């Protein structure tokens, strides 16, 4: 029996004459059912509310700038027809993946070095501060100018935009690595490779997963800008052409598809990965 259930039994007015056990049992049963359904029902509720609100706005405004839900549905059909969406998405994903990989490896290496050596930390600190303040838009523009159109420019722009945030995140994780385990690694004379795989990476795993989420969300925003400015493929390019045609429903359709893929990556890949990698953790009972 949870403490909430018993306190609810005491606090509900008018329920004084009922046997407290009955109230507790009923509340507990309701809680279990709600607990199971909540992760499915509540997100759907939000999506339904937003869609309903949008449709109400479309009806009220009667404007081509706010298309009705069926129009967006039709655009979605067009976008997904013949696998067009997935082709463009794959192109964008490749760019994000390449940039993300570069930034991730660089941030892990620099983060561990900064956490272990004060000199390296002082040396790289300005890079983080400046890097965090430069807008992704600037990197997108510069990389299109420097590298022209192609995978390199997009990957470098993504890497430059997300590396500072990733690094800051990882640095905090490095500073929190258990000093006692570092001593054990020293006593066992573990070589660098073993220290990385058995101590640093597992210690940093929660930070790295959090960083991956943050980095991916930033990466999308930058890659779309690069594609919008300099490339003739990818989600950003498609968004730009819909924008050129003043097709609001098209822009929304591409964005919805994009968001759906993001959700799959978040819940299907990252959450599963986290569950697997963190299985050694004792689950909290409270």
């Amino acid at each position: 029996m949870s403490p909430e259930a018993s306190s609810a039994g005491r606090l509900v007015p008018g329920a004084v004459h009922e046997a407290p056990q009955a109230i507790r049992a009923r509340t507990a049963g309701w809680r279990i059912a709600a607990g199971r359904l909540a992760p499915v029902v509540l997100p759907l509720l939000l999506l339904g509310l937003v869609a309903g609100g949008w449709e109400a706005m479309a009806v009220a405004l009667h404007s081509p700038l706010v298309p009705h839900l069926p129009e967006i549905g039709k655009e979605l059909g067009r976008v997904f027809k013949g696998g067009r969406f997935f082709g463009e998405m794959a192109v964008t994903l490749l760019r994000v993946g390449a940039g993300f990989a570069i930034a991730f490896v660089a941030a892990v290496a620099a983060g561990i070095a900064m956490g272990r050596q004060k000199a390296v930390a002082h040396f790289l600190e300005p890079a983080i501060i400046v890097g965090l303040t430069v807008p992704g838009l600037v990197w997108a523009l510069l990389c299109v100018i420097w590298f022209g159109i192609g995978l390199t420019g997009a990957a470098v722009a993504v890497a430059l935009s997300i590396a500072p945030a990733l690094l800051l995140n990882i640095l905090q994780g490095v500073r929190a690595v258990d000093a006692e385990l570092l001593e054990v690694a020293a006593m066992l004379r573990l070589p660098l490779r073993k220290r990385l795989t058995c101590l640093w990476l597992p210690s940093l795993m929660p930070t790295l997963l959090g960083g991956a989420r943050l980095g991916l969300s930033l990466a999308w925003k930058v890659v779309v800008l690069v594609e919008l400015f300099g490339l003739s493929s990818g989600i950003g390019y498609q968004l730009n052409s819909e924008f050129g045609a003043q097709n609001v429903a098209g822009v929304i359709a591409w964005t919805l598809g994009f968001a759906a893929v993001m959700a799959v990556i978040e819940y299907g890949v990252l959450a599963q990965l986290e569950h697997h990698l963190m299985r050694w953790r004792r689950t909290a009972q409270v």
Partner: protein
Amino acid sequence: MSDARGLPLHISRLDKHYAGKAGPRTVLRGIDLDVEAGAFVTLIGPSGCGKSTVLRLVAGLDRDYAGTIRVGGAPIHGPDLARGMLFQEHRLFPWLTVRQNVALGAFHSGRTPAALDAHVGALLERVGLGHAADLFPSQLSGGMAQRASIARTLAGDPRLLLLDEPFSALDAFNRLALQLELERLWQRTGITMILVSHDIEEAAYLSDRIVVLEADPGRIRTVVDNPLPRPRDRLSPAFNAIKARLFDALHVATGTPHAGGADPATIAEEAL
């Protein structure tokens, strides 16, 4: 195995200072200690006497000291698997299973994966954890975790074992069981053991010699020899005599009047 397995330890004129805000603080001053190969020596003393610092210096975890430390006749340069260390906490890697943790300890043994596996299995059987090999540390009790930690240290084939209050966080039953197991391990392998403890009975039960330290700065007050034959009987008068000497050396009141002290009956009479 023979007694020749253990490494002797020689410490002379050992000083250690910590840098503090109000100038350097002396933690150890003029420590002289010789431990012959295969001996069991306990360092005991109040907190702040630097007993753990001695172990950390011998382990090679801290190389900032003055004086001489020699293990097996050779000066020390950082940690070495020949000098194993057990900590008060089990310090297992929480994301590795018991088996993987122990295997890390034997990483340098140059065994083939199959041989390593057999070696780890044998070590786990020896510490009574054969059934728990694939559990994570969070699934172990305190005693089991400390046993796994012992197996990991033994996997490196140490010849000098540094024990930094390894049983002090355990419940009384586990502590007694592990003291017994440690004694058997020591007798079977001949590994030199240096134990840091604040448990007088533990020191009296396990050691050949007990080095009593005092604090501010940490220095040796006295050395108590413990020639009692093994296995030792914790309830025997001879054992209690050793304990009494330790209590005395540590200036701990035991709750009974000492010889030469005032007689309680006299005090009672005077009060009336």
